[in-house]
């Protein structure tokens, strides 16, 4: 019971989704059930967020209890959660909504864009360290990389009109060919990985007895 029933649940869910995908015109009623099942998936994973948050809270409680040197920062984290929970359900144009808007627009959004924008510095340091023509393979990576970088900035055309052309060739041909091969191979991998899970061959996620 502890093993067979879960496997059966997974198997039936997958068969339902795939059957709908291939045969929905033959059995139209199946579409509604499959859509429902997909929606159930989002409901379950929405509730899973509660479990994930519980893990976050537990980990930080342990940090505080173990008197980790950064334990006080865990209180900052708790405060972040609390502020959003207390103000997140506020009606628009109230004082609470203004507090929410300060934390959301003033801190949450800028932290996202600022973190994302430091990525280009990582690219710059990787450019010096890792982008080297050590062998023929690496040279094949390097040359289009440089041409595309030059071709994609307005200054590239100023140096030579040939750069934007080279850039678009690499983007439209070499890039597409490589991408397609990866997609075709990966699709095969996805189908077989899914197949193993559905058949219950891979059940390492059961955890324990």
């Amino acid at each position, binding site marked *: 019971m*502890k093993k067979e029933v879960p*496997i059966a649940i997974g198997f039936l869910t997958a068969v339902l989704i795939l059957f709908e995908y291939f045969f929905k015109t033959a059995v139209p009623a199946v579409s509604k059930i499959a859509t429902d099942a997909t929606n159930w998936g989002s*409901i379950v994973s929405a509730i899973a967020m509660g479990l994930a948050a519980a893990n976050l809270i537990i980990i930080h409680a342990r940090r505080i209890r173990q008197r980790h040197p950064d334990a006080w920062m865990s209180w900052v984290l708790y405060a972040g959660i609390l502020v959003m929970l207390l103000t997140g359900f506020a009606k628009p144009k109230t004082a609470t909504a203004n507090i929410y808007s300060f934390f959301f627009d*003033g801190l949450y959004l*800028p932290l996202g864009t600022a973190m994302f924008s*430091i990525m280009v510095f990582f690219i710059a340091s990787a450019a010096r360290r890792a982008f080297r023509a050590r062998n023929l393979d690496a040279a094949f990576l390097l040359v289009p990389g440089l041409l595309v970088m030059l071709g994609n900035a307005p200054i590239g055309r100023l140096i030579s009109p040939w750069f934007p052309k080279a850039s678009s060739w690499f983007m439209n*041909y070499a890039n597409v060919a490589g991408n397609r*091969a990866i997609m075709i*191979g990966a699709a095969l991998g996805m189908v077989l990985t899914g197949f193993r899970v559905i058949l219950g061959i891979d059940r390492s996620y059961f955890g324990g*007895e």
Partner: protein
Amino acid sequence: MNLATAKVWAGALCVFACYSFLWKENRFFRVFQNLYVGLAAGYSLVVNFNNVRRQAWGPLTTKGDIWVIIPMIFGIMLFARLFRKYAWIARYPMAFLMGLGSALSMKAIESDFVRQIQASLISWKGVGLGGTLNNLMLSLGTALALVYFFFTFKPNVVSNAAGRVGRWVLMLCFGAAFGSAVQGRLSLLISQMQFMLKDWLHLIS
């Protein structure tokens, strides 16, 4: 200080906190990192709570759709993972999610397999020599790059050579993609600097 100004100053502070990481991992960064994780978790709890209310609680109470009780119970069963003795209860919803995800992934057989093969079937007689080479790149290039991914076939002279050329195609592809990504990542830095110079320091208009 009004709300809008306060937001701009808070935003600038966030930029300093994140950029300080580039100098060295430090406590200033870590404080904001913890705040960010907290805000994100809180925000996500609010969003997901609203989702459950709209997708499950709403239909259950207003439309009498009793079926949505099942995913709600499944969701609650996941919490059994917190207690080692009852952890097995969480297997049922996990199996459901894994089955659902596996099936959705398997649909890639159409979009990423059949349709991609179909798109690679193009005439090798392109317009002029250039066109022919381009089209050869698109179809033969894809075919050769696939050789790189063979795992179990016994290698021979032909497959080794083909695999080598296939690897080059992949490398060209990665180089081009890396180059174009530089463009996008740089734009993000530029808009961040536009925010700092314009909204915060009022140096440009």
